[in-house]
């Protein structure tokens, strides 16, 4: 039986805009030649992020699309951090190997990344570090030191930056661009009339400007990037620009200025948001009506709450649209409990966390389940178990999202594959939570959280706020859990005039009072569980709970979350090599799109269906088997905590489809 429900399901943009639906072919073929990839690395805290931001803004203002993803340790200052950036004619959604530039602030960057060089890769490094070897870099992990030394000694090069650069040049075809960083800074100090020690704070501008110069970015474009980043701090802008001019001249005298010049960008949107995954979820939540966000600090979720707090006053051109209360709690148990409390009062409420915090929230999640509370948990997966690798990524927490907690209660679990999906999913999560009066877990990961893209401002045309079934004129005899009209009870809010209600974690009667009568239990438990069946009836499987990109071909990749970007680009790469495949992108895991997934899988031989996941167990593949009875028997897995790169994925697919491999483990990335 379908019960009448108010409102409309948020269907707009359930189908993401990229690649355009049904035109995978059209999206493909642009190729990756109109792109520059660079890797910039240095110690954590050395201004790498600032450098990447300046470049991202500068390229975006020129009309290029930028993707950047950051790798870092759980450390404040000193450990090796690096950012992979792709500047392209179309938006990239995953990292790709073979950087055109490796720009190093320090010796460790060269020693860690020289093996990633490809023919033509320009390696920008500091000549002062030439003699530094792995043993003089205390922040390098001992396994990495041993590997570097072995690679270099086996090929007959000294174990130093100089040896690494020579190796990259001779063995891999790289082009060294040695710069004397101290001399450049001394020139700057001279020009600005400041002591050399003060010029040191501009250090990160050297690799930044070298990249800009190599890629042919005009100085005025770079200036625009600095002005944006250092708005109102003209002295900093001028200092940076002065140094950039010095670096540009040096690169020019090495004959490399514009050596990697990008073709002018195609026509495109006139403006972009430059956003991380964390930022874009915060934006979706604001548009979707979130007004209470609770959190306890945890990587990689906390930045979402920071973004919300920075915009807590919803002001647009002097017009106040209210405010979002962002509340830092004493722990994650309090975070979800307070979010639930806010939801009981009728606020759209959510909390954002990562695995360890989610574990603490589980008891309260069950409380929200039995009390039919619309609360949203945004879960950013990182490398587990336990503290695991807190700043690295994974897709290991799907089972936790789906099955954690004692007892049975309905929950909706959805996941996003890119920033655009994440924006609309944040809205959808809140709509579904209220429509089905149950917790919704929105699963993301560190890869998405910490990657930054150029996103055209999302349209909200057709997006609906669906508050679900609300009680019309509730009076003194209001029954919060009235099931006479179906499994979803008309909702009133705590504090609503003329009405009171009770909630309890115990099984309860229609008023919310404790009731262990077996017939009451039979009815109440069934009504709650049936809400999921209702969701399954209302939310389309094809296009909304799972999306098929491409069709037919020699193989089918099955993945979810941020696998999407790498999978689609790998399909394109493979197509260029004559291997044709499709990608089935799983979006909603509860209620699972069993019928549609079964149908898609049925058109491929079992040996040509490949699960791609950033985990050891490939949980999504197990869910496919559980729900459809179809076992996936080929796997491409990665659990190093580093993102899946396009090239390694394409090669792994080839080994399975053409080489007969059944399981490929990916390892690319330092």
């Amino acid at each position: 039986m379908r019960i009448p429900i108010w409102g409309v399901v948020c269907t707009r943009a359930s189908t993401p805009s990229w690649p355009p639906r049904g035109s995978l072919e059209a999206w493909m073929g642009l190729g990756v030649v109109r792109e520059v990839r660079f890797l910039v690395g240095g110690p954590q805290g050395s201004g790498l992020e600032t450098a990447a931001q300046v470049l991202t803004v500068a390229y975006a203002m020129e009309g290029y699309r930028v993707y950047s993803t950051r790798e870092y340790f759980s450390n404040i200052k000193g450990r090796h951090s690096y950012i992979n950036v792709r500047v392209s004619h179309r938006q990239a959604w995953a990292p790709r190997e073979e950087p055109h530039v490796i720009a190093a602030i320090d010796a460790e960057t060269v020693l860690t990344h020289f093996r990633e060089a490809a023919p033509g890769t320009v390696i920008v490094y500091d000549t002062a570090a030439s003699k530094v070897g792995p043993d003089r870099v205390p922040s390098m992990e001992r396994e990495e030191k041993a590997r570097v030394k072995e690679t270099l000694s086996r090929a007959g090069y000294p174990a130093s930056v100089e040896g690494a650069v020579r190796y990259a040049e001779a063995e891999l075809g790289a082009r060294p661009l040695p710069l004397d960083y101290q001399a450049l800074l001394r020139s700057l100090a001279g020009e600005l009339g400041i002591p050399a020690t003060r010029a040191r704070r501009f250090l990160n501008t050297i690799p930044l400007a070298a990249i800009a110069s190599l890629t042919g970015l005009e100085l005025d474009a770079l200036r625009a990037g600095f002005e944006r980043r250092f708005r109102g701090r003209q002295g900093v802008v001028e200092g940076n620009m002065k140094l950039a001019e010095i670096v540009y001249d040096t690169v020019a005298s090495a004959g490399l200025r514009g050596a990697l010049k990008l073709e002018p960008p195609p026509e495109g949107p006139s403006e972009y948001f430059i956003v991380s995954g964390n930022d874009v979820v915060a934006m979706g939540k604001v548009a979707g009506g979130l007004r209470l966000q609770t959190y306890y600090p945890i990587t990689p979720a906390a930045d979402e709450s920071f973004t919300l707090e920075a915009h807590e006053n919803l002001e647009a051109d002097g017009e106040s649209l209210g405010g979002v209360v962002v509340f830092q709690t004493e722990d994650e148990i309090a975070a979800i409990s307070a979010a639930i409390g806010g939801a009981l009062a009728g606020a759209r409420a959510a909390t954002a966390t990562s695995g360890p915090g989610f574990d603490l929230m589980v008891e309260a999640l069950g409380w929200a389940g039995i009390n039919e509370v619309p609360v949203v948990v945004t879960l950013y997966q990182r490398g587990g178990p336990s503290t695991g690798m807190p700043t690295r990524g994974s897709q290991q927490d799907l089972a936790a999202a789906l099955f954690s907690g004692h007892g049975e209660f309905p929950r909706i679990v959805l996941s996003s594959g890119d920033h655009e999906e994440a924006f609309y999913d944040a809205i959808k999560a809140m709509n579904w939570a209220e429509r089905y009066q149950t917790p919704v877990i929105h699963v993301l990961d560190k890869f998405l959280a910490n990657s930054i893209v150029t996103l055209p401002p999302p349209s909200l045309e057709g997006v609906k706020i669906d508050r679900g079934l609300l009680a019309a004129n509730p009076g003194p005899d209001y029954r919060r859990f009235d099931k006479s009209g179906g499994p979803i009870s008309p909702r009133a809010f705590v504090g609503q005039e003329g009405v009171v209600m009770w909630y309890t974690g115990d099984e309860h009667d229609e008023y919310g009072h404790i009731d262990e009568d077996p017939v009451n239990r039979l009815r109440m438990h069934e009504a709650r569980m049936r809400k999921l069946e209702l969701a399954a009836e209302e939310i389309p499987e094809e296009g909304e709970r799972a999306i098929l990109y491409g069709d037919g071909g020699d193989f089918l990749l099955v993945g979810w979350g941020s696998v999407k970007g790498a999978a689609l680009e790998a399909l394109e790469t493979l197509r260029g090599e004559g291997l044709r495949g499709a990608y089935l992108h799983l979006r909603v895991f509860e209620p699972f799109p069993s019928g549609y997934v079964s149908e898609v899988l049925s058109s491929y031989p079992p040996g040509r269906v490949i699960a791609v996941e950033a985990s050891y167990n490939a949980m999504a593949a197990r869910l496919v088997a559980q729900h459809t009875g179809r076992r996936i028997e080929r796997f491409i897995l990665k659990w190093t905590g580093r993102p899946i790169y396009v090239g390694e994925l394409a090669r792994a697919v080839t080994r399975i489809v053409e080489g007969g491999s059944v399981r490929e483990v990916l390892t690319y990335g330092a």
Partner: protein
Amino acid sequence: MVLRMDYRTDVWVDWCPGCGDYGILTALQKALAELGLKPWEVAIVSGIGCSGKTPHFIYANGVHTLHGRAIPFATGLKLARPDLKVIIDGGDGDLLGIGAGHFVALGRRNLDVTVLIHDNQVYGLTKGQASPTLPAGVKTKALPKPNLQDAVNPIALAVASGYTFVARAYAMDVNHLKELIKLAVNHKGSAVIDILQPCVTYNDLYTTEWYRRRVYKLDSEPGWDPVVRDPSEREEKASRALEKAREWGDRVPVGIFYWDQTREPFEERLARRIPSYLDSPPALQPIERGGAPVVDAERLKRIFSGYLVRRRR
């Protein structure tokens, strides 16, 4: 169920005959009635255990939460609807054992809610284990061996945590408790009342008899003035409250230990940052018009303009 202004429900009260909880329930119902609050203006939020059932016996919004978590549930409710009167009922194990972290955090915030601690020194519903307020070395009848852990001092902990209204009451003196509840509910900030109560089934040491001979009212003490009227008095009054909190034995004081009327409640701190907060709190803001988001695409761009870049060419 019909609308009742006496704050009673027709749910059968299933506490043991003679339980101190009856005194607390009666005092709370009378206090709410005398305060003239409407049932929908009040939310009673409880944890787990015998005290956790309190909301079901009161005709007002009732939220019976998880063990130890009444404070954070209540906090979210209050943040979303700062105009609600939120009263937290929890046991000593609930608020000072499993939920002790939340108890401390609430004091730091001075959120305008009231905490009632049902303090009977035992975990009743699980058959009499020692609670965090049971002194070391004593053996109540359900304990197989004397208690090894020292008691926490709820009054001292509350003062140290920053609660701005700290009182103790005795559950069997309903009128005194009722008056304290009224003061606590009207106080602007985090208020706590540590309510001593017998557990007639499991605590054979701290009985009605034991308390009757020892309890005295701080009001009767010449010169006792716990009220901070100016921030400069905080240190001295808090020190005196801590000293008084240590008195336990032949004489057990009840009444107000510390009452700071000068510290800004959390809601006002929030309102200084979000000017619309008190008039338009999270639960009362319109978020859609005709189903469309109030924050439409244009407004979203303006709110997040710091992220927006325009193409130069």
